[in-house]
């Protein structure tokens, strides 16, 4: 038997099933259209409401706008060349913790990773300490530790005080990643996408205390704690899943993007607002009614996202949402109330970017930090003297 015959034999399984009626398919398509129209109407209503509030504010002069003209806008005020740099991990007692992504390998017996976290003095850009054996994506600072979900299928806990590094490997089958840690209700919550589960973990003992099956799809990327609930992205579905930490049950599944090319990838919380980001767009989600959550606002930052570029980093702080994009390499400052872009900060061009390189954003103290290949940049509000 040749290869084509073999594939053809397997494909014959399809012929045993009837083709669904085209009328049913169109009916489903119409329903999707109506849902999209309803969302557009909601967004329009929300925009009208914002415009009304703005008009009232101008008329009564009771709301102060904190957005200054462009010449006083935000820009890069400092830049350090720091080779070997990796992912921005967190802000700990005024120091920046960054992962060295350039040595993402295990030791010979595959028990300990060879990478490390560097502790950087933000005033000088110099590494003042290193923590061997710590690395991973989706960093989270919570419960006295830095939590990272690394490439070698373990959850990493780095004690902020002692720098002790511990590992947890909670999956059943071993070869799957962990993503999106969040701290809520005394536990660390992390997604195990290929198991379709969210794991609840005791932050001290690292024991898995509960596993929540996510039937909507694969949970992953980033997570958030908002309005008393734990939120995870559902990969490839443009959805969010909301979990009640008091019952460990899924409360609702929220449609964010109806575009099949759009994948929810990041969650942000700014005050009393929840935001979901895809590769192109930032959405605000009204989560005030469990089971009836709605997208109420959105801003599209770019036309498309693919392997060559898209939204990469995001952070909240200093009264704004900060979003970085690759190709073009930019940082956007976004008003969290209106989702309007208030500043666009171009980043210096990077040559020979490593495949694992991304543009990370972190807000720490009174500055925004951006990391690209080999460079750490501070973004701050510029005065005329620094222009």
């Amino acid at each position, binding site marked *: 038997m*040749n290869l084509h015959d*073999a*594939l053809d034999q397997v494909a014959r399984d399809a012929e045993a099933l009837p083709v669904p009626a085209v009328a049913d398919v169109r009916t489903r398509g119409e329903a999707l259209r109506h849902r999209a129209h309803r969302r557009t109407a909601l967004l329009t209503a929300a925009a009208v409401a914002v415009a009304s509030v703005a008009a009232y504010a101008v008329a009564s002069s009771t709301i102060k706008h904190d957005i200054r003209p462009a010449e006083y806008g935000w820009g890069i005020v400092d830049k350090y060349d720091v080779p070997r740099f990796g992912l921005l991990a967190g802000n700990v007692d005024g120091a920046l913790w960054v992962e060295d992504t350039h040595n993402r390998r295990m030791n010979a017996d595959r028990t300990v990773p060879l990478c490390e976290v560097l502790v950087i003095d933000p005033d000088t850009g110099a590494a003042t300490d290193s923590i061997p054996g710590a690395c991973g994506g989706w960093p989270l600072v919570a419960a006295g530790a830095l939590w990272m979900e690394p490439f070698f299928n373990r959850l990493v806990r780095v004690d902020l005080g002692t720098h002790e590094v511990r590992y947890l490997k909670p999956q059943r089958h071993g070869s799957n990643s962990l993503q999106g840690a969040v701290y809520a209700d005394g536990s660390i919550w992390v997604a195990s996408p290929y198991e379709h589960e969210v794991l609840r973990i005791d932050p001290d003992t690292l024991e898995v205390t509960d596993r929540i099956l996510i039937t909507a799809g694969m949970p992953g990327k980033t997570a958030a704690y908002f309005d008393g609930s734990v939120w995870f992205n559902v990969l490839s579905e443009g959805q969010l899943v909301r979990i009640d930490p008091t019952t460990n049950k899924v409360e609702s599944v929220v449609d964010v993007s109806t575009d099949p090319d759009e994948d929810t990838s990041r969650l942000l919380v700014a005050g009393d607002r929840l935001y979901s980001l895809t590769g192109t767009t930032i959405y605000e989600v009204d989560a005030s009614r469990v089971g009836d959550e709605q997208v109420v606002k959105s801003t599209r930052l770019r036309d498309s996202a693919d392997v060559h570029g898209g939204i990469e980093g995001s952070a909240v702080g200093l009264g704004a949402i900060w979003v970085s994009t690759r190709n073009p390499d930019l940082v956007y400052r976004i008003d969290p109330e209106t989702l309007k872009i208030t500043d666009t900060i171009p980043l210096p061009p990077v040559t020979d970017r490593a495949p694992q390189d991304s543009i990370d954003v972190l807000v720490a103290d009174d500055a925004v930090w951006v990391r690209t290949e080999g460079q750490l940049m501070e973004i701050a509000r510029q005065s005329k003297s620094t222009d």
Partner: protein
Amino acid sequence: VAEERGFDEFYLVAFPRLHRQLTVMTMDAEQARDALQEAFARAWQRWGKVSRMDNPDAWVRTVAWRLCVSQHRRRMVAIVGNRKLAGRDAPFDDQRDQVLDVREALRRLTPDHRRVLVLHEMCGLSVVEVAGETGLPVGTVKSRLFRAREALAGVLGDGYAESLGAES
């Protein structure tokens, strides 16, 4: 009405073809059918845009594939597939054992490897075209094709070599 007619014609012609391809990619004809049904519904949702594409087949196939991957059925695929396999009557007589081996070999491939194999071998896409549809680098497509073929070579035996010989 003209829009409906255009969609219906596209659906009736493309569905069986795409269903066969997705069946091999997923090793689950029912899952493939469900995903395709939803993908075609999404195509009708934005038919004004999809109908003007150079290759609407590729759009529907990509959407259906993503649905398959995301529909929390990875574990179920193996379980249900094995159950179906055990209960199925011998459909191909003397070639039955070999077909079972091929199924098992295909099932042991990751879905991503099967997808690349099907796009190249069943859909007739070039390596560059497969890279375009999957968003993978050309080198990755080539290595996945190599691994998929390597896995199947053992169970297909001489016929496999003949099929490759016929290609070149």
